[in-house]
């Protein structure tokens, strides 16, 4: 059997060489394609007739505006801004309702544990660790996701994303990448791990690799809550309230996305001049007709598919993380908890980057899923002595302030979250797609290097100029 197989393969190879000889080294692809196109055209000229050519052009009129050189980018940015604004404005109240709801339940749970005389450690692990951790994830993450994903899906179904790709194409071409990278980036807003699979639409392996390496610089849903929360707590100035506050938060988020895009383009440019050298290939980007989205269906499906899936994942990972964090925070060695020892170990390095040891530890423990970085951080802070009764979103700020946070800490954490290595699932997908350990490791190391470099630079500058 074995010999027969290898014989088969060899003769197939010889077949190809015969074929290559026959083709005479010429490019017969064009001839093949024109053969097929000719047949299509002749069928259509027989069978398809147009009553009104003008109607066909309505899409082009809109496209002339949204992909124009002057209006393309302003329209794109304002749409993005509006999406953020809707998300933040809409998520604010439900988040605090959920937080206080879970706070009330926690009171009952604690009472129940006391009633049955459960040992303190059990109450600690289950209520203060597990329950508080997961309820945190839900109240901070669910409302923004329930708004952001459906709105984004509506835009997608309307047909706007290919126009974004069209606008971005020039930038990507200049940086040596592929215009379709803009589409895989859009996918990354939802989930980087899924976006890695979506890079399959890019034909050239070189450009696909660029898209894979840089996808991480688009904040995924695991990082949105961190970015939204920190920017609304620390980036809006003390006096601002209401609509103005929402507006500033939205602009800060926009800024983050823009930084992500700039880094994407820079990394693409550097890589395409060094390790992934090559000329961008030509391709045709289809601008599909605009279609009226099926509004309710889209909302329901995107809520179910995205929001709930993401939430389930977050809870599944956050629950054990909550327990581990609590145990680390309550196991004492030499008078200090293990958690504090670990935080103290990372602290000097983290301080250079404008953060503290707890934040660094949260990022490290958060490798399996970015969703749990913030919950781990909060649990870490809470178990380290500064117990705050958390029943509203504003008291989260008190937790942070008690641990010496300034706007620089928040900014550094946001930047680090935006730029640092992708989550474990994404890395596994990168390895599966590229089948190369080298690229999987590089796609964690390159972003990490950039994250460290950028936060270091920002922290040092802020300190030199005495802004903090």
């Amino acid at each position: 059997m074995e010999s027969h197989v290898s014989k088969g393969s060899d003769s197939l190879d010889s077949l190809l060489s015969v074929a290559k000889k026959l083709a005479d080294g010429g490019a017969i692809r064009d001839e093949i394609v024109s053969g097929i196109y000719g047949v299509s055209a002749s069928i259509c000229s027989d069978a398809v007739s147009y009553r009104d050519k003008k109607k066909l052009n309505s899409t082009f009129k809109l496209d002339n505006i949204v992909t124009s050189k002057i209006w393309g980018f302003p329209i794109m940015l304002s749409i993005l801004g509006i999406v953020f604004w809707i998300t933040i404005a809409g998520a604010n109240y439900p988040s605090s309702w959920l937080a206080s709801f879970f706070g009330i339940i926690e009171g009952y749970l604690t009472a129940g544990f006391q009633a049955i005389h459960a040992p303190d450690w059990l109450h600690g692990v289950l209520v203060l660790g597990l329950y508080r951790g997961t309820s945190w994830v839900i109240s901070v993450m669910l409302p923004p996701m329930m708004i952001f994903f459906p709105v984004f899906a509506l835009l997608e179904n309307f047909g706007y994303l290919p126009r974004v790709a069209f606008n971005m194409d020039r930038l990507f071409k200049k940086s040596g990448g592929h215009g379709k990278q803009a589409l895989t980036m859009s996918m990354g807003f939802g989930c980087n791990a899924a976006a890695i699979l979506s890079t399959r639409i890019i034909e050239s392996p070189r450009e696909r690799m660029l898209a894979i390496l840089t996808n991480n610089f688009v904040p995924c849903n695991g990082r949105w809550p961190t970015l939204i929360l920190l920017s609304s707590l620390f980036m809006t100035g003390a006096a601002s309230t209401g609509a103005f506050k929402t507006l500033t938060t939205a602009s800060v988020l926009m800024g983050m996305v823009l930084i992500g895009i700039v880094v994407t383009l820079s990394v693409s440019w550097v890589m395409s001049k060094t390790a992934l050298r090559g000329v961008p290939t030509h391709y045709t980007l289809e601008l599909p007709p605009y279609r009226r989205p099926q509004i309710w269906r889209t909302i329901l499906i995107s809520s179910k598919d995205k929001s709930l899936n993401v939430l389930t994942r977050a809870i599944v990972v956050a629950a054990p993380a909550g327990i581990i964090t609590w145990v680390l925070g309550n196991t004492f060695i030499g008078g200090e908890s293990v958690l504090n020892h670990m935080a103290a170990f990372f602290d000097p390095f983290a301080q250079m980057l404008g953060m503290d040891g707890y934040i660094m530890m949260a990022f490290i423990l958060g490798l399996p899923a970015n969703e749990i970085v913030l919950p781990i951080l909060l649990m870490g802070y809470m178990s380290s002595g500064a117990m705050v009764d958390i029943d509203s979103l504003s008291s989260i700020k008190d937790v942070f302030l008690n641990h010496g946070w300034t706007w620089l800490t928040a900014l550094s954490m946001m930047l680090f979250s935006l730029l640092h290595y992708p989550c474990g699932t994404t890395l596994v997908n990168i390895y599966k797609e590229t089948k190369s350990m080298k690229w999987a490791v590089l796609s964690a190391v390159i972003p990490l290097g950039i994250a460290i470099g950028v936060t270091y630079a920002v922290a040092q500058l802020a300190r030199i100029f005495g802004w903090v």
Partner: protein
Amino acid sequence: MSHYTVAFAGNPNTGKSTLFNLLTGMRQHTGNWAGKTVITAEGEFTHNNHMYRAVDLPGTYSLYSNSADEEAARDYIIFEQPDVTLVVLDATSLERNLNLALQVLEITGRAVVCINLIDEARRLGIDINLKAISKRLGVPVVTISARNKIGIEALLDQVERVATGAFITDPMRIIYNDEIERGIAELTPMVEQMIGSKYPARWIALRLLDGDDSLLASLKENIKSKEIPEAKEVIGYGVTC
């Protein structure tokens, strides 16, 4: 009750996934941009007491192995040999979409061409002469609107006729220029001799002339792995319909 496999092929963004969801009752996310379906999805549906396994292939513009997507779609049609390949076309840009249908017909005659978004085309004042197209292609051609559930029964009837062999298809053959045809004529017997009549020899000859290394790799892979049950990358969903 008999069991058939139907593969859904089509250009990106032709409503292929919408039709797939409608038939299988699955709720894959559908979006209005090229390249959304990245992994083959599977579901099931029944029609007139026949069970169908539906396979949603990635949306592609051609089967010329330009990308991993196109290779996946091509390999499925050639090597898995579905009972029916349903080619979904966009009625509003039929000329461009037909190219893929023609390429599928070069591989398999067991095909049904499904022109989707017919309501949109009517709105834009596009008239399509179904009979003329069907006559040229030699396979059943149906117009539907997946999102408004128009023409679905008629489509499934045609799928059934092809699946059960009630409709003997006579897929159109594209005649290329003399040079290519000479090459095909010379290669086809060699291909047939080497890999038997299981695979479309004329089409493979054409692809080899085009220097398609990736098809060759897939052929080798398939000849080798014929003994081993294939591990495919497929997402399984629950079946609700």
